């Protein structure tokens, strides 16, 4: 399975476009557009607007998310921004501040 991994000491300032899964353990600032799944790991810091199929957040995200399938914020996750997705899961312990729109 082809997969992109951004390591913990990597900082990307720009945009990421992809048609495969993306796992972020480092820092990304800018814009992320994927056709598959985005995983923000615990050490990951994302300051970007995200457009993807699903998002799973274990780290830190600041920005707006527009997902065509699902957005999940796990217990270690912290998010500030708006979420627009048909399905949303916010686990116990997660921190979230923003608007939620499930009417896609």
């Amino acid at each position, binding site marked *: 399975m082809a*997969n992109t991994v951004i390591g*913990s*000491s990597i900082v*990307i300032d720009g945009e990421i476009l992809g048609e495969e899964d993306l796992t972020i353990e480092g820092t990304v600032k800018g814009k992320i557009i994927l056709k598959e799944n985005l995983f923000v790991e615990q050490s990951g810091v994302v300051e970007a607007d995200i457009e993807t199929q699903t998002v799973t957040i274990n780290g830190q995200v600041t920005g707006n998310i527009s997902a065509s399938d699902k957005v999940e914020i796990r217990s270690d996750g912290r998010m500030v921004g708006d979420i627009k997705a048909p399905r949303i899961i916010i686990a116990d312990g997660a921190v979230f501040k923003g608007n939620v729109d499930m009417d896609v």
Partner: protein
Amino acid sequence: MNNAFETIVGEQTTIRGNLQGDEDLTIRGRVEGTITLSKTLMVETGGIVLADMDVKNAVVSGVVVGNIRASEVVQINEDGRMVGDITAPRVIIVAGASFKGNVDMGDIDRARPEPPRMETTERPRSTFSSRPTPASPAPARPAPARTRERAAPPARKEPERTSRSTRASKPASKPAKAAPKPPPKPKPRRSAPKPPSVAKGKKKVRKKK
């Protein structure tokens, strides 16, 4: 989930922007912008990089368009194609690789553009000495020529008189009279580069006013 010991940009991923990191980076997709790493960059077959890179090592098996600056080694493998400049102490280009650009390994001494400049500055000095001789018989060269051109008629007369009387008196008289005149001396240096092409006639025309 994956081998998270290094960063991998997958085949179907495009990154545009600036990338910085302290770990190895493997590119199988597309990266445009700039890459700064303190470790090894590997562009695998199928990877396309349009970026300027500042890394420790670079191993290119894909397509790279951009300049690579490495502190250790740059290697272009058989499948690798690169257009751009390489600046690194060690460079390896394997048989079958394609490369177009400049290679700078930094150890070679250079000796080119500086010497000609020195020569041009020296030339005017020689013309300088030759210039005043036809203009006036005075042995002191830069001073009499300068005074002439600047002060117009009154200046001309003074040096001539002193020259007729004694050559030795000239330097003594001149400093007293030419209190404001010393500044002209640096001028020759500025205009130094010009004389060779300009020749002598032009200067006179300028300052006649």
